[in-house]
């Protein structure tokens, strides 16, 4: 029993190192300080309570993974500043707004949230960036 437990623990440790180290090998877009500040604004305003990134987060508003390429920037700024419908107006400063936009653009560049049908393999898995 102890043997299986030790084996599993070692596999877990190795797998964790692999995930941390090379799991993101396709993403070479490093965050700068503005993007990091934007991420902090995202967290402090609790945007994740209503919005999703890659389908993870709240359900009140739309997924914002690719909003930066789907909507024009002035429109995004207007939405954030004045709100609409269920979206509250966020009292963010101009600098915070710039950082938040930089964060959303960074997320957008990392990939697309929706999985195209042609990436679904017959075994049921996806082949994203593996063709």
């Amino acid at each position, binding site marked *: *029993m102890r043997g*299986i*437990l030790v084996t*599993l623990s070692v*596999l*877990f440790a190795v*797998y*964790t190192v692999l*995930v*941390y180290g*090379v*799991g*993101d090998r*396709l*993403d*070479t*877009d*490093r*965050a700068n300080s503005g993007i*990091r500040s934007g*991420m*902090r604004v995202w*967290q*402090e*305003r*609790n945007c*994740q*309570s*209503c919005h*999703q*990134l*890659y*389908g*993870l*987060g*709240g*359900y*009140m*508003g*739309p*997924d914002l993974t690719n909003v930066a390429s*789907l909507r024009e920037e002035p429109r995004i700024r207007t939405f954030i500043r004045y709100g609409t*419908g*269920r979206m*509250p107006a966020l009292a963010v400063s101009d600098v915070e707004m710039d950082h938040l936009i930089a964060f959303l653009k*960074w*997320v957008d560049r*990392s*990939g*697309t*949230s*929706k*999985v195209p049908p042609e990436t*679904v393999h017959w075994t*049921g*898995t*996806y082949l*994203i*960036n*593996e063709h």
Partner: protein
Amino acid sequence: MNKVTRWQIGFALALLLAALIFGAIAAFAFVFPDIGDLIPFEQLRPMHVSAALFWIISGATAGVMHYKREVFTEQGRSALQAVFFSIWVATTIAVFVFYAFRKFGGREYWEFPPILCVPLLGAWLLLMLDYFRAWRHRPTDPPLYVWMWTTGIVFFLITFIEQNLYHVPWFRDTYLREITVQWKSNGAMVGAWNQMLYGTALYLMVKISGDEGIARGRTAFLFWFLGLSNLMFNWGHHLYNVPTAGWMRHAAYAVSMTEFAFFIAIVRGFRKKLEEHRRFKHLLTYRFLVASELWVFLNLILVLLMSVPAINRYTHGTHITVAHAMGATIGINTMILLASLGFMLRVDELAASRKKWIARGLAMTMASLLLFWLALIAAGAVKGYRDVVLGMSDFQRMMQPVFEVLKVFATAGLGLLVGMGIIVRHFLAALRKASYGASA
């Protein structure tokens, strides 16, 4: 039961009530936005989520810290238990104070300012110190539930630290690394508290049946290893659509399919379960455990489907994910916790009228939860169809019929509030009468 355990039980039940109340209001605020004018949804949701999360962890630790005293033949008072609990309570209250002032800063499930993770970590280390000091007096050949408690406690620490690694800039270097580490830890953390809870459920079954053999068999250990493997490697379904390295996706898919073994075991053991039910159905503690097993079965069907990426494509980011989370936290975790707290409070020795009310509360909870769960699945299916199949881009238009279905979910939530409210009321009455010193 010692004085600290009594307080732990009372605190856990208060958190359950808070989770139910915030959850019921949040559900209506989701469907009827005007309610959100009073308390914004972005405040209600974290209040509900944190109350539920702290209910599960507080209830699980109350049980483990209490039962270990008997299993490890621990004598005397434990000052560490009291210090752990004091820090835990103070930090939990601070979380809600911060939410009340709209001070956020954390991430999904842990949306409070991250500085509060420091006392939580300190409290957990004290809990571990208390546990492993007693561990020295463990039986020579520990039963399975001891291993489950131990791995649950250790993996909670690992995943809690991992959840906070984003404070190290390297972990935020790329968005894919940031999101992967976040959901790796979140997924595994659920597995960690499940280890503590399933261990408790097994301990209770041993106590009810008087058969220590069920915690020592080879098959039981094999299934534990399978569960542990899923804790370690089956978190990838959160990230199927994230363009990380493919092997991460394929590994998660392969490991998740091993859960078919649990499904087959439940189906094969059905006849035995019926026999067991005939023997113990008069016990409330047992009925809570059976309720949790029923939800393991229902949720397993959903999880197995969601774990196939080709199906996950339609369910990811929809309310089907919420159905899975609610089935797990209410149907499985909460039912095991109510069994555990009920066992400690000796609810099976209460007056017949009280027991009848608890049974009614359980029946109402189960009926409401089924409706709640089915409404969420239906809402998710509608969203998945309109989003993926019809490709609708206008979010509000896409969600219109979903909000209609969610009115059923919000109404069922009221049933949950009333049903579990009845149970909590009678548990609190039992807590007031519970005597010190007597071990369950």
